[in-house]
């Protein structure tokens, strides 16, 4: 019987952003390391002028090339060792709010999704993934959803709060509708809400800042 790991992660690398095209290249995230006042170092991405954390939540019990998907064979070998037949891959960067700029969001989602599709194409029967949608631009989100469905995605990644809306907000209903006149088949794909929120401090309860 197949064992399915329903929640595995990839750690994004600079390679993730190699799929940015044209003018979107100006939004390419830049990795930096900061010496913190505590004496420790902390790793960030610079995205749209903001420091975005989350590059330190890394399982040291996995090989770098494996967690960053630089070597798919290494990842598959490790999956074999731990008895996992299929992994459903979720992002790491997008666990937190990344940008409040719809253009940056669209560019990063597109690049991340194409990186993931490339990974899937190398082990279609072992690696599936959750698509990251540019939810600030709903028409583009639907395009991305359809594209991802044809490229190995088996779920839609969502955070507990998205684009300053709770997930029961009608804002998200369009996601489930087939556009009028579309010849594209209906997409059957689950929505997977994960335990993070997508709100920046300008719109988020400052009370919850620095909780993780």
């Amino acid at each position: 019987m197949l064992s399915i790991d329903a929640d595995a992660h990839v750690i994004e690398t600079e390679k993730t952003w190699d799929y940015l095209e044209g003018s979107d290249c100006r939004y390419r995230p830049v990795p930096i390391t900061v010496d913190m006042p505590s004496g420790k170092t902390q790793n960030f991405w610079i995205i749209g002028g903001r420091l975005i954390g989350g590059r330190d939540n890394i399982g040291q019990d996995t090989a770098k090339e494996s967690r960053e998907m630089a070597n798919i064979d290494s990842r598959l070998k490790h999956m074999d060792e731990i008895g996992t037949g299929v992994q459903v891959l979720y992002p790491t960067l997008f666990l937190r709010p990344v940008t409040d700029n719809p253009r940056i969001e669209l560019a990063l989602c597109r690049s991340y999704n194409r990186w993931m599709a490339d990974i899937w194409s190398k082990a279609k029967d072992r690696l599936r993934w959750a698509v990251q949608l540019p939810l600030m631009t709903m028409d583009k989100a639907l395009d991305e959803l359809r594209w991802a469905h044809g490229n190995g995605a088996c779920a839609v990644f969502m955070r507990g709060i998205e684009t300053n809306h709770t997930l029961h907000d009608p804002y998200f209903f369009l996601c489930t509708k087939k556009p009028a006149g579309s010849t594209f088949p209906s997409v059957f794909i689950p929505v997977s809400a994960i335990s993070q929120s997508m709100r920046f401090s300008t719109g988020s309860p400052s009370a919850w800042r620095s909780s993780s």
Partner: protein
Amino acid sequence: MPIIDADAHVIENESAWDYMLESERQFRPRIVGATNGDPAVDYWFIDGRLIPRSNVEKTLPEAARNMSDLSIRIKHMDELSIDIQVIYPTIFIFPTARRPEADLALCRSYNRWMADIVKQAPDRFRWVVVPPLLNMERVFEELNFGKEHGACGVYLRGLEADRRLSDSYFFPLYDAASKLDLPICVHSANGSIESHDFFLDEPGFCKFKLAVVGAFHSLVNDGIPERFPQLRIGIIEVSAQWIPYAIHDLARRHVRRGKQLSKNVLKDKRVWVTCQTDDDLEYILGYAGEDTLVIGTDYGHSDNASEIEALRKLRREGNLTPQVINKILDDNPRALYAL
């Protein structure tokens, strides 16, 4: 054996604001309704905000709900076999004031109103004092007033002053509560305007209950019980079903930091939690232990946690041993509130 209702309410009426100073009258809450008389539209208007007045159990006599005639309330308590009720506010379940001066005026008046009510039957009623948290320099004075007038706890919401409860902003409060032997009682409620209003159209689980579960997690995870070793903590009106989840999460986080969470974390951290009769109590006791659960009726309210017969039902229908039931009804609330 006395039976203690660890979570009962008063429904404030306009006399709650009669204690405001002349200089504070501008902040006096006003009852507002629809001009067409629609009874569904019923609010307090406070400091520019509307606070619902709808969470009221209307089958109870009004004089019992607002405690304007204690004989009616006490007669009902006798019928319910309740010896002591610990009274929590209703209006302060919501974030009430934006301005410190309004916050102070509301808290001061409410606390003096409650002191006047409770002194009429101090052997049957105790109450939780509401601290003016936008005026930290006035908090000790207000807690001290409460302590001298029958208060047995300090009322807190899951988020206060747009901060988590483990924020160092609250350390003077915890110091004062410790010195006065008053527990902080974190009630299903939210004092953050931003957080409350974000969840405005949801029924209360996210904006009230999850805020309180999060407060418990923050307080323990950030070491507040160790920093204030005399401080007792009550977690009120969010059922007890969340205890296994939160403790399990805390234990894993401790391990990741190379620490060990104690086996009886609630007792060791001096945390008590109100349970409901429909909680899976046998399962919860495995995490909470026998010495940390209390129970309340939510008297006066009509919401997801209200159960006027809760205390009698626990004794009559509960699958727990008499020893555990006695602890939940008497020993544990007595320890929490230092009664």
